[in-house]
């Protein structure tokens, strides 16, 4: 086999795997990209039913109610808030007034049905999306907010 032939084969193989990879990535992106919305966004935008989304904000003070394994609470970006329902064990750092991110779908009656709740390892940490969402409402108080 000549050098040129070999180079051609390798090139074809490389292009083929690049093509396969791009196809895989694009197909996977179509189904698995999860967009982030703040409670204010949800007031203005209409979402296709059954779309998985991610919301975030602060857990509203005195909104947490537990009933067995199901916890209901409200997530706020200080301008608007949304009711969230979650069944399962909450992360250690979940508490009122703390930043939280939830994955799930909008359910009937505008309640967000979460299947995953993320609170951060670090108590000083604010998820960047949450910080941004609050900044947009003009209520951001760095440091003092804790």
């Amino acid at each position: 086999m000549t050098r040129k032939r070999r180079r051609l084969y390798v090139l074809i193989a490389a292009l083929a795997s690049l093509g396969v990879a791009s196809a895989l990535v694009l197909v996977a992106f179509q189904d698995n990209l999860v967009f982030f919305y703040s409670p204010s966004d949800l007031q203005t935008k209409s979402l296709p039913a059954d779309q998985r989304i991610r919301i975030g904000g602060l857990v509203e003070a005195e909104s947490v109610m537990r009933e067995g394994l199901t916890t209901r609470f409200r997530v706020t970006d200080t301008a608007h808030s949304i009711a969230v329902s979650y069944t399962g064990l909450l992360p250690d750092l979940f508490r009122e007034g703390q930043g939280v991110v939830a994955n799930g779908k909008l359910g009937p009656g505008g309640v967000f049905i979460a299947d995953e709740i993320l609170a951060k390892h670090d108590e000083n940490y604010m998820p960047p999306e949450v910080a941004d969402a609050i900044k947009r409402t003009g209520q951001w108080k760095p440091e003092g907010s804790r």
Partner: protein
Amino acid sequence: MIPEIGHYALVLALILALVQTFMPLVGAARGQVSWMAVGEPAAIAQFLLCLVSFASLTWAYLVSDFSVLNVVNNSHSLKPLIYKISGVWGNHEGSMLLWVLILTLFGAAVAVFGGNLPRALRARVLSVQAGIGVGFMLFTLLTSNPFERLNPAPVDGQGLNPLLQDPGLAFHPPMLYLGYVGFSMAFSFAIAALIEGRVDPAWARWVRPWTLTAWCFLTGGIALGSWWAYYELGWGGWWFWDPVENASFMPWLAGTALLHSAIVVEKRDALKSWTILLAILTFSLSLLGTFIVRSGVLNSVHSFASDPARGVFILGFLIFVVGGSLLLYAIRAPSLKLGGLFQPMSREGALVLNNLLLATACGTVLVGTLYPLLLDAVTGEKVSVGPPFFNAVFIPLMVPLIGALAVGPLLAWKRGDLAGALQRLKFAAAFALLLAAIAFWLEGKAPLLAPLGMALFGWLVLGALIEWTERIRLFRVPLAESFARARGLPRAAWGMTVAHLGVGLVVLGITASETWQTEKLGIMRPAERVTVGPYEFVFEGARQVAGPNYTALRGRFRVERGGEFVTYLHPEQRRYPVPPMETTEAAIRPTIFSDLYAVIGESDGKGGHATRLYHKPLVSWIWIGSLVMMAGGFLSLSDRRYRVGAPVRRRGAAAQPALPQKA
């Protein structure tokens, strides 16, 4: 006083690194031996200075010197000794110092063991290595000085994040860094080869052991991190495709590819420029990983405190290093002499396929990791890319890789016989089909994945064993002769077989634990029982207990199987006073067959507790398999031919006593 010595030593090391970056490089270009000779003592002195610096910080932690800001922020006088030590690298500043220390350690290793490297190559390698060191020392001194003083000193520190107070995590960063930073060696050698415009098998014989060393540690570091996530985070998962995890996984994928392509350079003198490119990319990905972790640009569950100035610095450094080295590559690579020829169906061909698939997989992980960042920058939309994406792209790329993994080693160099190789693998194929059929019959949540995973496991493990029996001609010659052959087999061959078996075990662990795990979530009252898989968990209540530096709610489960007592499990919910924080301590009883995993949550105020119970079959094999892979790597490393620092030249060359040989 001692922190000042540490600070001073680091500044001295920086100056020395600057000297070491230029003098040997210029000396090599001009052929001045005296200038080239600066490299070795400089590299060793640099390492010693960094050691002094690191030891000073460790000292500050040991004696709880609260006049040092870093100690105040990350330690506490009541902390157990081991966590005072691990606290040194449990924070940003200290971990950068550890990074620098390991970098200079590798530099010093070249100086000490590189006695029989060609002089100019050694000088250039040391220069490049020092250049990387300059970047990181500047970064540490300018943006993250661990020796900053605090006046007045507080009475006590703020403590270490309790999640990091864990033996698994105490050793995770050093292992990971030995891996990350270890790839700097391959990078330095690649840049030196590009400057020289020459890559030969002797070059690859040098690069291979260093890459392998780095790869072993990175494998161990990633496995340790995933094990930590599994038992400490209490979510029952072991891999989350989190940006920080991906940051260490991408160099691993690229490093694995590099490891295999370096074999082709060494044995067949082919794929040279690709190997150089891989070496550059692997270390670039390590740098990118550092950028991702240290700048906090990506939302991650493992968040470290972040600071935009640091991100900008690392980004600048990243652009300089990656851009510069790729530019050099573009200019110099075409001039590299092309090497041996081979048929597509050959050992080389199989290794090319391995490289293509690994590089592609690495590329898709990169896209998935950086896409949210890109979209945010371009459109301002916030998006997250989670495990479903990665599973959807990663698994289809790994399936052919593992499929080919059993075949590749059976192909001959240069021109292989695929039909013959497949013929020899017929038992492996039969075994794979059998396992697939059993898995299909047992069925699980993912009916397709289970048979596929089990088939891959069977194919790979038996394939690796068949390759080994072929080598020692087991059952074809008398057993004694096979035994003699096995003893005579090079360690590198043993290493390969062992490492490939490790991959098979990891596949087994992942498939079985994902498919056949049972999860039970519920509120349990004392004396209540729940069936989880083949086991029954009886909740015996929970009470408050006191630990060395925390208080905890401790639950007690009695586990039975068919009425027989098996074990007690004691999951805890801990509350640490400094820093104030709650953590979940899962109780796990690991065995090689299955893990029992229990988590306890808060009381519901009516005598019940939220509980989460798992039965995870064969999950330990994920980590056992990783250890086996790592052991395979070290076994290879112990091969006489690669003994670090002793790349024996071909006999003809070694016969000329050109230079006094140190090794």
